[in-house]
């Protein structure tokens, strides 16, 4: 191996330190920072008694509403004001609502050209029979992309807060609360065995039929996530890990987000520049139609399902 610089010179450069940090060979904090395990807080008998005495004294003298007239007056005043405040806020909201235009009026400001265009042009533009999904995933695909990113970032934040090291989960079974509940509950297991396949199938049906019937990526994904949660609750994490572990989770989630981003970028670039979009719209009403709606539904669905399951798993035992 030949290098322009000597090894000792290279070690002083920023690039060397950066790549060392990237590779995780040296943690900047290990060795430099004093780390001590937290001691359990033990309270002495005397302080407890003193606190109880103080509390008793305070209750007798300060909060003695039987004899303290000012306090009694203040309490009554406080209640009256809180009731008046609540009533005022409710009245304000109701008055505001009464000024809104009534449902179904023709000259309502929401009855403008936008919704008319969505209804009349939606089928020819997006190829989706279900106008709602067509609108969300093609006219407003950018919004939905933002929402999917929000889901991704939310799981990242929950992971940062609740993730426990894999070794610690193994050695310290206390950190997960499996011991709190009856394991191998017969009723739950039989119910799960019957329900989980149905829930999964229905979720997949809703995702794949998102452009034809009510539903779409988000609802179908939430359903599949709920099915996965039911499965874990009945059979435990060991069985779940056989087909859905952290590796699968990472692959599915990142792939779905990247593919979604690529499709939306392509769609918007062609649309904004007036170029023809190469994604075929298909024949309306068939399963392979709807242009970008069908693939985006699938990606959003897998993203949402992963998010729902990840929340549950992270809350339960601090890992996937």
């Amino acid at each position, binding site marked *: 191996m030949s290098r322009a610089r000597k090894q000792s010179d290279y070690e002083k450069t920023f690039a060397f330190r950066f790549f060392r940090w990237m590779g995780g060979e040296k943690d900047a904090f290990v060795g430099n920072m004093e780390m001590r395990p937290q001691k359990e807080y033990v309270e002495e008998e005397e302080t407890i008694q003193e606190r109880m005495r103080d509390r008793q004294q305070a209750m007798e003298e300060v909060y003695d509403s039987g004899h303290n007239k000012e306090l009694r007056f203040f309490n009554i005043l406080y209640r009256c004001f809180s009731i008046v405040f609540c009533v005022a806020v409710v009245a304000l909201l109701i008055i505001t609502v009464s000024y809104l235009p009534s449902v179904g009026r023709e000259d309502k400001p929401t009855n403008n050209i936008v919704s008319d265009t969505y209804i009349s042009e939606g089928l020819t533009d997006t190829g989706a029979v279900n106008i709602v*999904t067509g609108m969300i995933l093609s006219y407003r695909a950018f919004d939905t992309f933002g929402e999917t990113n929000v889901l991704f970032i939310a799981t990242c934040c929950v992971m940062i807060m609740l993730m426990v090291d894999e070794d610690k989960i193994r050695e310290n079974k206390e950190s997960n609360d499996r011991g709190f509940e009856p394991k191998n509950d017969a009723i739950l297991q039989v119910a799960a065995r019957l329900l989980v396949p149905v829930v999964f199938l229905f979720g997949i049906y809703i995702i794949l039929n998102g452009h034809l019937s009510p539903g779409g990526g988000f609802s179908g994904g939430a359903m599949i996530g709920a099915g996965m949660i039911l499965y874990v609750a009945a059979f435990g994490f060991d069985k779940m890990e056989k087909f859905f572990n952290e590796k699968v989770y990472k692959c599915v989630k990142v792939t779905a987000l990247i593919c979604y981003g690529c499709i939306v970028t392509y769609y918007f670039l062609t649309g904004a520049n007036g170029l023809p979009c190469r994604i075929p719209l298909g024949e309306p009403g068939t399963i392979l139609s709807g242009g970008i709606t069908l693939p985006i539904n699938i990606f959003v669905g897998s993203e949402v399902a992963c998010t729902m399951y990840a929340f549950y798993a992270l*809350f339960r035992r601090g890992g996937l």
Partner: protein
Amino acid sequence: MTVFNVILLAFLVVCAISVSFSKNLLNSILIFMSYSLIMSIIWILLESPDLAITEAAVGAGVTSILFFVTLKKIHAIQQEEEDEHEPRQKTK
């Protein structure tokens, strides 16, 4: 149909108020769950089945489960065995 709507809406208001007045956290979550279910029926009556499906799956299903798990983590739900042997401590 209007009567049915009114009954559902009244139930919604009752649920919303009783969630905040319920002392027991577990009961609050159950009431919140029923609120979501009623809401999903109302979405169907308002002719938006998309929202109804989402509300039923997320509002009544996943959110309540996450609430249950959180309550368990902070030991707000007591175990059944403890309830049988010793009287529950009244918290005020």
